[in-house]
């Protein structure tokens, strides 16, 4: 059995096994069993193959708390959050009933402006005692963002759940072997470039994987140089600012120097990292099960993104809103309370693929599922992270950014020309259909 196989098989098994142990039983529960709420609830969620078994554990535990609510789980297999939203909204428009719709930040505004989701304020007010542990424990930054950039001062539609920030996963073995100091908080772009000279001494060995696959991955370069991709309210494109162009040029230089693999083909971060062919990859928590299963967690150090003028990184979070058309909002609300509860968050955290937004669980439980050195960086980064731009047109904006960044990383095209053209294109998407962009 090779490492990759071990990585996936053991990762999935370990995730399910850990979740099955239900560590929440050892914890004082903030959600007592309730058999008064009854009915049937349909939950649509992102049907990725590697997380479905963990979901089954969550549903089973939910039924321990709410034995009279039947969850009908609908995994929607999609390649992006936008295609997931398109499929879900199409089905709902066609008459299908979803009571709860898993939604990452990318589609949260879209679901509001499309009128898909229902306000939660009445439920929150009514059950504030039950939700008190959640509100006391949840990272206040997420609650603030939920109010400002998602609700925009209007009703509350979401309770923020697990999240991801974009951190550097550093291969300490490669740094030590090359005689380069292992990065630590406050390290800079210059430190990164200097490390490249010493680490990339043989073909096929890379310093960092500059992944063009999502604006979430590109944004940290801009932020750490004082730039942005969009304005804070996501209404204007800022991709042609001098800071963002300079950031693009820097990332391009890493590719041109051979410090990063160029886009195209297939590049497996975990395999290359485990084989000491890749010194750094950017990631949230999603590759953690693979790293743990490959027994490579011991050589990982999580550090912040290298900076030029300031700290910065991307952040995004999940939520489970009730749909406006739900005919059993009470049961749907019960599921949302469950997902926010200690026992659910503990169980989700045990999968090793979810970073909890609840402080006590982050510091008590995440280390077991994610033993990498510096895992607390995920919490620290939230204080200076910037939510990944998620206007209504985020799909079109993201696709345009991916295309341009791919061009940037795979050629020596002029960054200023590319980013200026990209800015014009993205501005068009944002302007074409009102405040949120095209929909």
């Amino acid at each position, binding site marked *: 059995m090779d490492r990759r196989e071990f990585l996936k098989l053991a990762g999935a098994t370990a995730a399910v096994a850990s979740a099955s142990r239900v560590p929440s039983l050892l914890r004082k529960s903030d959600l007592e069993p309730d058999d008064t709420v009854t009915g049937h609830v349909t939950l649509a969620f992102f049907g990725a193959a590697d997380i479905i078994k963990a979901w089954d554990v969550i549903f089973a535990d939910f039924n321990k708390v709410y034995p009279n609510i039947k969850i009908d789980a609908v995994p929607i297999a999609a390649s992006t959050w936008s295609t997931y939203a398109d499929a879900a909204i*199409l089905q709902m428009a066609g008459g299908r009933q979803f009571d709860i719709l898993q939604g990452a930040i990318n589609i949260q505004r879209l679901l509001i402006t499309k009128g898909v989701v229902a306000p939660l304020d009445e439920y929150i007010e009514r059950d504030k005692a039950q939700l008190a542990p959640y509100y006391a424990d949840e990272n206040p930054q997420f609650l603030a963002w939920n109010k400002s950039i998602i609700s925009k001062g209007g009703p509350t539609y979401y309770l923020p759940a697990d999240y991801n920030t974009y951190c550097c996963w550093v291969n300490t073995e490669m740094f030590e072997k090359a005689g380069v100091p292992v990065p630590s908080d406050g390290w800079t772009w210059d430190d990164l470039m200097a490390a490249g000279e010493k680490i990339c001494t043989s073909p096929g060995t890379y310093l960092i994987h500059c992944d063009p696959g999502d604006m979430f991955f590109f944004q940290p370069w801009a932020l750490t140089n004082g730039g942005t991709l969009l304005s804070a309210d996501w209404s204007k494109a800022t991709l042609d600012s001098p800071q963002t162009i300079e950031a693009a040029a820097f990332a391009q230089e890493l590719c041109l120097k051979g410090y990063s693999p160029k886009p195209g083909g297939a590049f497996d971060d975990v395999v290359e990292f485990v084989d000491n062919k890749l010194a750094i990859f950017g990631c949230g928590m999603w590759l953690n099960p693979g790293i743990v299963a490959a027994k490579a967690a011991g050589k990982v150090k999580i550090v912040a993104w290298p900076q030029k003028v300031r700290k910065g990184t991307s952040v995004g979070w999940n939520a489970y809103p009730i749909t406006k058309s739900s005919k059993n909002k009470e049961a749907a609300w019960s599921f949302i309370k469950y997902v926010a509860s200690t026992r659910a968050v503990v169980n989700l955290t045990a999968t090793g693929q979810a970073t909890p937004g609840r402080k006590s669980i982050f510091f008590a439980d995440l280390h077991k599922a994610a033993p990498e050195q510096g895992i607390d960086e995920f919490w620290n980064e939230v204080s200076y992270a910037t939510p990944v731009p998620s206007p209504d047109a985020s799909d079109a904006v993201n696709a345009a950014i991916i295309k341009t960044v791919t061009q940037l990383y795979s050629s020596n095209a002029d960054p200023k020309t590319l980013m200026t053209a990209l800015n014009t294109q993205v501005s068009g998407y944002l302007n074409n259909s009102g405040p949120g962009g095209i929909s």
Partner: protein
Amino acid sequence: MATTHAPALAKVARRARRLSANTVLILMVPIFLAPVIWTVVQSFLPGSGALRIPPVWVTAHPTIANYSSVFNLIPFFTFLFNSVKITLIITCGSLVTSALAAYAFARLRFPGRNALFLMFLAALMVPNVVTAAPTYVLMHSLHLATSQTAVWLPGLINVFGIFLLRQFFRGIPRDLEDAARVDGLSTLGVLRRIILPLSKPALAALAILIGTTTWNDYFWPSIYLTNRSQMTLTVGLVSLQGEYKEGSPLVMFAAVSMTVLPLLVLFLFTQRAITQSLAMTSFR
């Protein structure tokens, strides 16, 4: 002298042309085959040996680990069975409906025939995304929206198939039909005993086109099939990518290899018939 040597020279010229054409084709073979072979080879490599440049084409230590991962992550055989089932239903069913409709448009006289045919052709211009919502509403109102029936039922009407067969049927001499009618065959009898046997190349070509399109279709199954026991291989492949594209490329390669395998096997066994039927259809 010149006239004596002319046939020989023409023969040499023909051979030279054929040789040069074959040489070009042989040179192109690696270009077309390389990605397929690379994908299959990578799927048998351990992580540490895969995705290397220069590419690894042969390995002394193949592993089936990536294939094991596929079976661990998705119910592959369930998806395979569903894909085969839906492909067979749509292919066979649409051949029947296309043949019936095409014969009507080609031979039967009825009011508004040409206008109706133009309407059918116009439907070819409408992209899937436009019809997705109304089709879903229709399927939902029929209580079929979460079933495989919603995928194959609309697929039974294939406008391109009707068009293709109509054109083919119109090329068959009417005298044959007249003779059959004199012998007492009904309209359906003429279609079944005269037209369809003469249209085997067109039917085969159409079956190939519809079969491969249905096999590879992701759009409709992704909308209707949200229960894992009903999903097809294409939907299963997408789910392997993961929420954040964290899915292993090698596991994807293994799944892709197994997905294209049935089509490749089918092609190997029916290669001669396929090429002949495509060639004959295109000549018309």
